[in-house]
Protein backbone atom coordinates (compact mmCIF):
# COMPACT_ATOMS: atom_id res chain seq x y z
CA UNK A 1 0.00 0.00 0.00
CA UNK A 2 1.36 3.42 -0.90
CA UNK A 3 1.80 6.18 1.64
CA UNK A 4 -0.87 8.29 -0.03
CA UNK A 5 -3.40 5.47 0.10
CA UNK A 6 -2.54 4.76 3.73
CA UNK A 7 -2.89 8.43 4.56
CA UNK A 8 -6.25 8.54 2.79
CA UNK A 9 -7.46 5.62 4.85
CA UNK A 10 -6.33 7.21 8.08
CA UNK A 11 -8.04 10.46 7.09
CA UNK A 12 -11.18 8.57 6.24
CA UNK A 13 -11.10 6.84 9.62
CA UNK A 14 -10.79 10.21 11.31
CA UNK A 15 -13.56 11.59 9.12
CA UNK A 16 -15.85 8.75 10.19
CA UNK A 17 -15.18 9.71 13.82
CA UNK A 18 -16.25 13.27 13.13
CA UNK A 19 -12.87 14.95 12.67
CA UNK A 20 -13.55 18.10 10.66
CA UNK A 21 -9.86 18.64 9.85
CA UNK A 22 -9.66 15.19 8.26
CA UNK A 23 -12.66 16.00 6.10
CA UNK A 24 -11.12 19.30 5.05
CA UNK A 25 -7.88 17.55 4.11
CA UNK A 26 -9.67 14.98 1.96
CA UNK A 27 -11.85 17.66 0.41
CA UNK A 28 -8.86 19.79 -0.52
CA UNK A 29 -7.12 16.74 -1.94
CA UNK A 30 -9.94 15.52 -4.17
CA UNK A 31 -12.21 18.46 -4.87
CA UNK A 32 -10.21 19.57 -7.91
CA UNK A 33 -10.01 16.24 -9.75
CA UNK A 34 -13.66 15.38 -9.05
CA UNK A 35 -14.91 18.81 -10.08
CA UNK A 36 -12.82 18.84 -13.27
CA UNK A 37 -13.97 15.34 -14.16
CA UNK A 38 -17.59 16.36 -13.67
CA UNK A 39 -17.05 19.60 -15.60
CA UNK A 40 -15.49 17.88 -18.60
CA UNK A 41 -18.14 15.19 -18.52
CA UNK A 42 -21.10 17.52 -18.23
CA UNK A 43 -19.84 20.65 -19.90
CA UNK A 44 -21.25 23.05 -17.35
CA UNK A 45 -20.16 24.29 -13.97
CA UNK A 46 -23.49 24.00 -12.21
CA UNK A 47 -23.75 20.29 -12.90
CA UNK A 48 -20.11 19.82 -11.96
CA UNK A 49 -20.74 21.59 -8.66
CA UNK A 50 -23.79 19.45 -7.94
CA UNK A 51 -21.92 16.27 -8.74
CA UNK A 52 -18.96 17.27 -6.56
CA UNK A 53 -21.30 18.11 -3.72
CA UNK A 54 -23.10 14.78 -4.07
CA UNK A 55 -19.79 12.88 -4.04
CA UNK A 56 -18.61 14.50 -0.81
CA UNK A 57 -22.00 14.30 0.88
CA UNK A 58 -21.95 10.56 0.25
CA UNK A 59 -18.46 10.41 1.69
CA UNK A 60 -19.67 12.24 4.81
CA UNK A 61 -22.71 10.03 5.29
CA UNK A 62 -21.25 6.68 4.38
CA UNK A 63 -17.48 6.71 4.86
CA UNK A 64 -17.45 3.03 5.71
CA UNK A 65 -18.70 2.07 2.27
CA UNK A 66 -15.20 2.58 0.94
CA UNK A 67 -13.38 -0.75 0.70
CA UNK A 68 -9.58 -0.32 0.47
CA UNK A 69 -9.31 -3.81 -1.01
CA UNK A 70 -11.13 -2.64 -4.13
CA UNK A 71 -8.97 0.35 -4.92
CA UNK A 72 -7.85 3.77 -3.79
CA UNK A 73 -10.06 6.43 -2.29
CA UNK A 74 -9.60 8.47 -5.46
CA UNK A 75 -10.98 5.63 -7.59
CA UNK A 76 -13.87 5.27 -5.19
CA UNK A 77 -14.73 8.96 -5.42
CA UNK A 78 -14.44 8.95 -9.22
CA UNK A 79 -16.74 5.93 -9.21
CA UNK A 80 -19.36 7.85 -7.25
CA UNK A 81 -18.95 10.81 -9.58
CA UNK A 82 -19.45 8.56 -12.62
CA UNK A 83 -22.64 7.11 -11.17
CA UNK A 84 -24.00 10.53 -10.32
CA UNK A 85 -23.05 11.77 -13.79
CA UNK A 86 -24.83 8.86 -15.43
CA UNK A 87 -27.94 9.70 -13.48
CA UNK A 88 -27.66 13.33 -14.46
CA UNK A 89 -27.02 12.50 -18.08
CA UNK A 90 -29.90 10.08 -18.31
CA UNK A 91 -32.16 12.94 -17.29
CA UNK A 92 -30.67 15.46 -19.69
CA UNK A 93 -29.28 15.88 -23.17
CA UNK A 94 -25.65 15.59 -22.14
CA UNK A 95 -25.04 12.09 -23.39
CA UNK A 96 -24.89 12.96 -27.05
CA UNK A 97 -22.92 10.45 -29.09
CA UNK A 98 -20.61 11.70 -31.75
CA UNK A 99 -20.92 8.74 -34.08
CA UNK A 100 -24.64 9.04 -34.67
CA UNK A 101 -24.50 12.58 -35.85
CA UNK A 102 -20.95 12.90 -37.03
CA UNK A 103 -21.48 14.07 -40.59
CA UNK A 104 -24.03 16.75 -39.98
CA UNK A 105 -22.26 17.84 -36.85
CA UNK A 106 -18.89 18.22 -38.54
CA UNK A 107 -20.46 20.13 -41.34
CA UNK A 108 -22.12 22.50 -38.95
CA UNK A 109 -18.87 23.02 -37.13
CA UNK A 110 -16.95 23.63 -40.35
CA UNK A 111 -19.44 26.17 -41.56
CA UNK A 112 -19.33 27.90 -38.27
CA UNK A 113 -15.59 27.86 -37.97
CA UNK A 114 -14.87 28.93 -41.55
CA UNK A 115 -16.09 32.33 -40.51
CA UNK A 116 -13.27 32.60 -38.06
CA UNK A 117 -9.89 32.92 -39.62
CA UNK A 118 -7.94 32.83 -36.41
CA UNK A 119 -9.01 31.64 -32.95
CA UNK A 120 -7.51 33.12 -29.85
CA UNK A 121 -6.61 30.88 -26.92
CA UNK A 122 -9.87 31.24 -25.05
CA UNK A 123 -11.95 30.45 -28.10
CA UNK A 124 -9.76 27.48 -28.93
CA UNK A 125 -10.15 26.10 -25.41
CA UNK A 126 -13.88 26.57 -25.52
CA UNK A 127 -14.08 24.76 -28.81
CA UNK A 128 -11.89 21.96 -27.51
CA UNK A 129 -14.00 21.62 -24.38
CA UNK A 130 -17.18 21.56 -26.42
CA UNK A 131 -15.71 18.87 -28.63
CA UNK A 132 -14.70 16.77 -25.64
CA UNK A 133 -18.17 17.08 -24.16
CA UNK A 134 -19.68 15.87 -27.41
CA UNK A 135 -17.72 12.63 -27.39
CA UNK A 136 -19.69 9.53 -26.38
CA UNK A 137 -19.56 9.04 -22.62
CA UNK A 138 -17.39 5.90 -22.66
CA UNK A 139 -14.70 7.53 -24.80
CA UNK A 140 -15.03 10.84 -23.01
CA UNK A 141 -14.34 9.22 -19.63
CA UNK A 142 -11.18 7.57 -20.91
CA UNK A 143 -9.95 10.78 -22.51
CA UNK A 144 -10.61 12.87 -19.41
CA UNK A 145 -8.94 10.46 -17.02
CA UNK A 146 -5.89 9.67 -19.13
CA UNK A 147 -5.25 12.89 -21.05
CA UNK A 148 -6.69 15.59 -18.83
CA UNK A 149 -6.15 14.10 -15.37
CA UNK A 150 -3.01 12.29 -16.53
CA UNK A 151 -3.86 8.98 -14.93
CA UNK A 152 -2.03 5.82 -15.89
CA UNK A 153 -3.92 3.04 -17.65
CA UNK A 154 -4.12 0.90 -14.48
CA UNK A 155 -5.50 3.83 -12.49
CA UNK A 156 -8.03 4.67 -15.17
CA UNK A 157 -8.96 0.99 -15.46
CA UNK A 158 -9.63 0.90 -11.71
CA UNK A 159 -11.87 3.95 -11.95
CA UNK A 160 -13.74 2.69 -15.02
CA UNK A 161 -13.93 -0.89 -13.74
CA UNK A 162 -12.64 -2.34 -16.98
CA UNK A 163 -9.42 -3.94 -18.26
CA UNK A 164 -6.47 -1.74 -19.16
CA UNK A 165 -6.73 -2.84 -22.77
CA UNK A 166 -10.25 -1.51 -22.92
CA UNK A 167 -9.07 1.82 -21.54
CA UNK A 168 -6.34 1.97 -24.18
CA UNK A 169 -8.72 1.22 -27.03
CA UNK A 170 -11.32 3.69 -25.79
CA UNK A 171 -8.65 6.34 -25.44
CA UNK A 172 -7.35 5.68 -28.94
CA UNK A 173 -10.86 5.92 -30.34
CA UNK A 174 -11.58 9.09 -28.36
CA UNK A 175 -8.46 10.81 -29.64
CA UNK A 176 -9.25 9.83 -33.20
CA UNK A 177 -12.77 11.24 -32.90
CA UNK A 178 -11.55 14.39 -31.31
CA UNK A 179 -8.86 14.87 -33.96
CA UNK A 180 -11.32 14.44 -36.76
CA UNK A 181 -13.61 16.97 -35.21
CA UNK A 182 -10.90 19.50 -34.52
CA UNK A 183 -9.42 19.11 -37.99
CA UNK A 184 -12.83 19.82 -39.35
CA UNK A 185 -12.98 23.07 -37.47
CA UNK A 186 -9.28 23.83 -38.02
CA UNK A 187 -8.59 24.16 -34.40
CA UNK A 188 -5.64 21.82 -34.54
CA UNK A 189 -3.19 22.24 -37.41
Amino acid at each position, binding site marked *: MTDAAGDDQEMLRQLAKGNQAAFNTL*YERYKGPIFRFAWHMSGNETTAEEVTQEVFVRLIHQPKKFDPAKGTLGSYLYGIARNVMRREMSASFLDVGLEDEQCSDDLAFSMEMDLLSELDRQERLEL*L*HRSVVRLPALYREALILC*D*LEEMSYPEAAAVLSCPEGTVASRLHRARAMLKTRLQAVRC*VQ
Partner: protein
Amino acid sequence: MNPQKDTLSEALRELAGASPEVPAELGSRLSSEFARHHVWRKRKRAGVVLGLAACLAISVYWLRPRSERTAVKVVTPSAQSAQVATGSPQVVASESPKVSAPSLASAGAKLKARPNRSRSVRAAESKQAGTPDAEQPLATIATGDFVALPTFDPAIPVGESRMVRVDMPGSALQLIGYPVDGRLLDRRILTDVLVGQDGMPYAVRLVNTRNTR
Protein backbone atom coordinates in the same frame (compact mmCIF):
# COMPACT_ATOMS: atom_id res chain seq x y z
CA MET B 1 5.99 10.84 -33.18
CA ASN B 2 2.84 12.05 -34.80
CA PRO B 3 2.86 15.88 -34.72
CA GLN B 4 -0.93 15.93 -34.71
CA LYS B 5 -0.97 13.82 -31.56
CA ASP B 6 1.50 16.18 -29.93
CA THR B 7 -0.62 19.14 -30.80
CA LEU B 8 -3.72 17.43 -29.47
CA SER B 9 -1.98 16.46 -26.26
CA GLU B 10 -0.78 20.02 -25.81
CA ALA B 11 -4.25 21.36 -26.41
CA LEU B 12 -5.72 18.90 -23.91
CA ARG B 13 -3.12 19.81 -21.31
CA GLU B 14 -3.97 23.42 -21.90
CA LEU B 15 -7.63 22.58 -21.45
CA ALA B 16 -6.91 20.73 -18.22
CA GLY B 17 -5.03 23.75 -16.89
CA ALA B 18 -7.82 26.07 -17.87
CA SER B 19 -10.54 24.19 -15.98
CA PRO B 20 -12.60 26.36 -13.65
CA GLU B 21 -11.95 26.34 -9.92
CA VAL B 22 -14.27 24.72 -7.45
CA PRO B 23 -16.63 27.37 -6.02
CA ALA B 24 -15.57 28.40 -2.52
CA GLU B 25 -19.11 28.24 -1.16
CA LEU B 26 -19.22 24.53 -1.97
CA GLY B 27 -16.52 23.94 0.63
CA SER B 28 -18.39 25.86 3.34
CA ARG B 29 -21.65 24.11 2.43
CA LEU B 30 -20.00 20.73 2.78
CA SER B 31 -18.31 21.72 6.03
CA SER B 32 -21.63 22.70 7.57
CA GLU B 33 -23.19 19.49 6.24
CA PHE B 34 -20.36 17.55 7.87
CA ALA B 35 -20.92 19.29 11.21
CA ARG B 36 -24.71 18.85 11.02
CA HIS B 37 -24.39 15.16 10.18
CA HIS B 38 -22.07 14.45 13.07
CA VAL B 39 -24.18 16.36 15.59
CA TRP B 40 -27.17 14.29 14.50
CA ARG B 41 -25.07 11.13 14.69
CA LYS B 42 -23.91 11.92 18.23
CA ARG B 43 -27.49 12.56 19.33
CA LYS B 44 -28.61 9.31 17.80
CA ARG B 45 -25.82 7.42 19.52
CA ALA B 46 -26.64 9.07 22.86
CA GLY B 47 -30.26 8.03 22.43
CA VAL B 48 -29.29 4.45 21.74
CA VAL B 49 -26.96 4.40 24.77
CA LEU B 50 -29.69 5.83 27.01
CA GLY B 51 -32.18 3.27 25.73
CA LEU B 52 -29.78 0.43 26.37
CA ALA B 53 -29.03 1.75 29.85
CA ALA B 54 -32.74 1.94 30.62
CA CYS B 55 -33.26 -1.63 29.39
CA LEU B 56 -30.32 -2.79 31.48
CA ALA B 57 -31.63 -1.04 34.60
CA ILE B 58 -35.07 -2.58 34.17
CA SER B 59 -33.55 -6.01 33.60
CA VAL B 60 -31.38 -5.71 36.70
CA TYR B 61 -34.38 -4.63 38.76
CA TRP B 62 -36.46 -7.60 37.70
CA LEU B 63 -33.63 -10.08 37.99
CA ARG B 64 -32.84 -9.13 41.60
CA PRO B 65 -33.73 -11.69 44.29
CA ARG B 66 -37.39 -11.49 45.21
CA SER B 67 -36.73 -10.62 48.85
CA GLU B 68 -34.85 -7.46 47.80
CA ARG B 69 -37.72 -6.15 45.82
CA THR B 70 -40.21 -6.25 48.73
CA ALA B 71 -42.83 -6.97 46.21
CA VAL B 72 -45.90 -9.05 46.14
CA LYS B 73 -46.24 -11.84 43.68
CA VAL B 74 -49.89 -12.01 42.98
CA VAL B 75 -51.70 -14.95 41.60
CA THR B 76 -55.36 -14.66 40.97
CA PRO B 77 -57.66 -16.75 43.13
CA SER B 78 -58.05 -19.18 40.28
CA ALA B 79 -54.34 -19.86 40.45
CA GLN B 80 -54.87 -20.52 44.14
CA SER B 81 -51.74 -19.09 45.63
CA ALA B 82 -50.08 -15.84 46.51
CA GLN B 83 -46.76 -15.14 48.12
CA VAL B 84 -46.47 -12.03 50.23
CA ALA B 85 -43.24 -10.60 51.53
CA THR B 86 -43.71 -8.16 54.33
CA GLY B 87 -41.40 -6.09 56.44
CA SER B 88 -42.36 -7.22 59.91
CA PRO B 89 -45.94 -8.31 60.18
CA GLN B 90 -47.66 -7.95 63.52
CA VAL B 91 -49.54 -11.01 64.46
CA VAL B 92 -52.60 -10.44 66.55
CA ALA B 93 -54.44 -13.52 67.59
CA SER B 94 -58.20 -13.73 67.40
CA GLU B 95 -58.76 -10.07 66.69
CA SER B 96 -62.13 -9.20 65.33
CA PRO B 97 -62.02 -8.12 61.73
CA LYS B 98 -62.03 -4.38 61.11
CA VAL B 99 -61.88 -4.39 57.39
CA SER B 100 -64.19 -2.89 54.91
CA ALA B 101 -66.09 -5.20 52.70
CA PRO B 102 -65.90 -4.21 49.06
CA SER B 103 -67.98 -5.79 46.41
CA LEU B 104 -66.32 -9.05 45.60
CA ALA B 105 -66.27 -11.61 42.98
CA SER B 106 -65.77 -15.02 44.40
CA ALA B 107 -64.19 -17.80 42.56
CA GLY B 108 -64.37 -21.43 43.48
CA ALA B 109 -61.20 -22.01 45.38
CA LYS B 110 -60.17 -25.38 46.58
CA LEU B 111 -58.26 -25.47 49.79
CA LYS B 112 -55.60 -28.03 50.52
CA ALA B 113 -55.64 -30.00 53.73
CA ARG B 114 -52.81 -29.21 56.09
CA PRO B 115 -51.15 -32.02 58.05
CA ASN B 116 -50.34 -29.96 61.18
CA ARG B 117 -53.69 -29.04 62.64
CA SER B 118 -54.59 -27.29 65.87
CA ARG B 119 -56.58 -28.64 68.73
CA SER B 120 -59.66 -26.58 67.88
CA VAL B 121 -59.60 -27.90 64.39
CA ARG B 122 -59.30 -31.44 65.61
CA ALA B 123 -62.28 -30.81 67.90
CA ALA B 124 -64.27 -29.46 65.04
CA GLU B 125 -63.29 -32.47 63.00
CA SER B 126 -64.42 -34.82 65.71
CA LYS B 127 -67.79 -33.03 65.85
CA GLN B 128 -68.27 -33.59 62.17
CA ALA B 129 -66.87 -37.06 62.14
CA GLY B 130 -70.13 -38.76 61.34
CA THR B 131 -71.18 -36.45 58.50
CA PRO B 132 -70.45 -37.19 54.85
CA ASP B 133 -68.70 -33.82 54.50
CA ALA B 134 -66.08 -34.85 57.00
CA GLU B 135 -64.94 -37.59 54.67
CA GLN B 136 -63.62 -35.08 52.11
CA PRO B 137 -61.29 -32.14 52.70
CA LEU B 138 -63.08 -28.81 52.62
CA ALA B 139 -60.02 -26.73 51.84
CA THR B 140 -57.13 -27.30 49.50
CA ILE B 141 -54.91 -24.27 50.23
CA ALA B 142 -52.08 -25.01 52.63
CA THR B 143 -51.34 -22.67 55.51
CA GLY B 144 -48.80 -20.04 54.51
CA ASP B 145 -50.26 -19.40 51.09
CA PHE B 146 -51.84 -16.01 50.72
CA VAL B 147 -54.57 -15.37 48.24
CA ALA B 148 -54.70 -11.85 46.91
CA LEU B 149 -58.01 -10.08 47.33
CA PRO B 150 -59.60 -7.83 44.72
CA THR B 151 -58.57 -4.83 46.82
CA PHE B 152 -54.92 -5.64 46.29
CA ASP B 153 -53.06 -3.22 44.01
CA PRO B 154 -49.62 -4.39 42.89
CA ALA B 155 -48.54 -0.78 42.37
CA ILE B 156 -48.83 -0.02 46.08
CA PRO B 157 -45.84 -1.14 48.16
CA VAL B 158 -46.83 -3.42 50.99
CA GLY B 159 -43.73 -2.98 53.09
CA GLU B 160 -45.57 -1.33 55.98
CA SER B 161 -48.53 -3.65 56.02
CA ARG B 162 -49.44 -5.74 59.04
CA MET B 163 -50.87 -9.14 59.46
CA VAL B 164 -53.94 -9.64 61.62
CA ARG B 165 -55.18 -13.04 62.74
CA VAL B 166 -58.92 -13.08 62.97
CA ASP B 167 -61.57 -15.62 63.63
CA MET B 168 -64.34 -14.70 61.25
CA PRO B 169 -67.37 -16.25 59.69
CA GLY B 170 -67.02 -17.70 56.22
CA SER B 171 -69.60 -15.21 54.92
CA ALA B 172 -67.40 -12.28 56.05
CA LEU B 173 -64.43 -13.91 54.40
CA GLN B 174 -66.43 -14.18 51.23
CA LEU B 175 -67.42 -10.53 51.51
CA ILE B 176 -63.83 -9.35 51.42
CA GLY B 177 -63.25 -11.36 48.29
CA TYR B 178 -61.95 -14.70 49.42
CA PRO B 179 -63.46 -17.63 47.55
CA VAL B 180 -65.28 -19.59 50.19
CA ASP B 181 -67.02 -22.85 49.69
CA GLY B 182 -70.77 -22.55 50.22
CA ARG B 183 -70.69 -25.03 53.10
CA LEU B 184 -68.38 -22.78 55.10
CA LEU B 185 -70.42 -19.59 54.88
CA ASP B 186 -72.04 -19.99 58.30
CA ARG B 187 -68.93 -21.31 60.03
CA ARG B 188 -66.10 -19.44 61.69
CA ILE B 189 -62.65 -19.64 60.13
CA LEU B 190 -59.32 -18.68 61.67
CA THR B 191 -57.64 -16.48 59.11
CA ASP B 192 -54.54 -14.33 58.67
CA VAL B 193 -55.40 -11.07 56.91
CA LEU B 194 -52.73 -8.86 55.42
CA VAL B 195 -53.86 -5.28 56.03
CA GLY B 196 -52.27 -2.35 54.22
CA GLN B 197 -51.47 1.06 55.67
CA ASP B 198 -54.80 2.31 54.41
CA GLY B 199 -56.62 -0.37 56.36
CA MET B 200 -57.61 -2.34 53.30
CA PRO B 201 -57.22 -6.12 53.36
CA TYR B 202 -54.83 -7.15 50.61
CA ALA B 203 -54.47 -10.86 51.04
CA VAL B 204 -55.84 -13.67 53.14
CA ARG B 205 -54.59 -17.05 54.20
CA LEU B 206 -56.28 -19.69 56.22
CA VAL B 207 -54.49 -20.57 59.40
CA ASN B 208 -55.75 -24.07 59.20
CA THR B 209 -57.61 -25.90 56.55
CA ARG B 210 -60.29 -27.40 58.78
CA ASN B 211 -60.60 -24.73 61.44
CA THR B 212 -64.25 -24.25 61.01
CA ARG B 213 -66.58 -24.30 63.95
